[in-house]
């Protein structure tokens, strides 16, 4: 695909999501309460968006992932929350 074709297909959708993220960050700033590892992980992942070159999606996913390599002793429930608590 040409850049123009990609823009024609995806620019408005990406623009929408970009504004959603900005609004989410504003919403989070207005909210009260304790700091949360998910909010920090999100801000850390945002840095990859501004990087040059391919592989931004993979880098965002990696930055939100558990980086350890050993199995845990016991499953802490069943669900996942989208970011590694550390």
């Amino acid at each position, binding site marked *: *695909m040409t850049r123009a*074709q990609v823009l024609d*297909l*995806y620019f408005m*959708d990406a623009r929408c999501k970009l504004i959603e993220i900005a609004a989410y960050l504003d919403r989070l700033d207005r909210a009260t309460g304790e700091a949360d590892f998910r909010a920090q992980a999100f801000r850390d992942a945002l840095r990859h968006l501004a990087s040059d070159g*391919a*592989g931004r*999606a*993979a*880098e965002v*996913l*990696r930055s*939100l*992932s*558990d*980086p*350890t*390599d050993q*199995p*845990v*002793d*016991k*499953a*802490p*429930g*069943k*669900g*996942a*929350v*989208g*970011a*590694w608590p550390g």
Partner: protein
Amino acid sequence: MRYIEPHGHMVSRTTDDYLDMVTAGCAAVCEPAFWAGFDRGTASGFRDYFAQLTEHEPKRAARYGLPHFCWLCINPKESEDVGLARDVIATIPEFLSRPTVLGIGEIGLNKNSKNELRVLEMHVDLAARHDQLILVHTPHLEDKLKGTRLILDVLRADSRIKPGRVLIDHVEEHTVRAVLDRGHWAGMTLYPISKCTPARAVDILDVNGTERLWMNSACDWGESVPLAVPRTALEMRRRGWSASAIDRVVYQNPVRFLSQCPNFRLPADA
């Protein structure tokens, strides 16, 4: 257009979904054993579930002219209880000779615990002893990268396992290359929020090619879209993919992998 839905938890869906899928061109659906949303308490509960997958659900799908196949296991979400898992795994061989069973799946990891790993090894051993195909679930979200690596290590450690007879599902941009580089097949799951969107799935195909890759909706009792595969085929069309290239991904690739199981047969006019 024709397509295979290689991963749909149809016991959780309505007959309307069967109607829509067949209308959209679905030529076969494959249903891995799954977590019910609550923990089943006994091996006999699983026996009933395996009977549902191998007896009842194929009849329900047949009313819409849709061939239905299944995979059997105890899901990783229920693998923390190793004793129960051992009892359930012991019941599986009596179902393996049923005519619509494709293999062992979806096995794998959920929270990457030691007990989950032990049960995964038991499943892999079961598949090896009975020469079964394997369908692997990789963990969700933050647990996926680590879980995928642990799963790949378990598979490599068992010399009886042929990589081309294993499909590792729910890959994303950060895991797909490792799966393909080990010689396995990889599945992309199309979900509204987690896993892959249609656009990202087509990106993964653009970057990695179409060899040993398939797409599925993994529709179940949660937020999921039974028509996600044909909708992604539409995304491919919007991006200029030819009809034959789309057919290779949504139909021929699943047929190639699944045909390694002699039970996977489609009507001649599919």
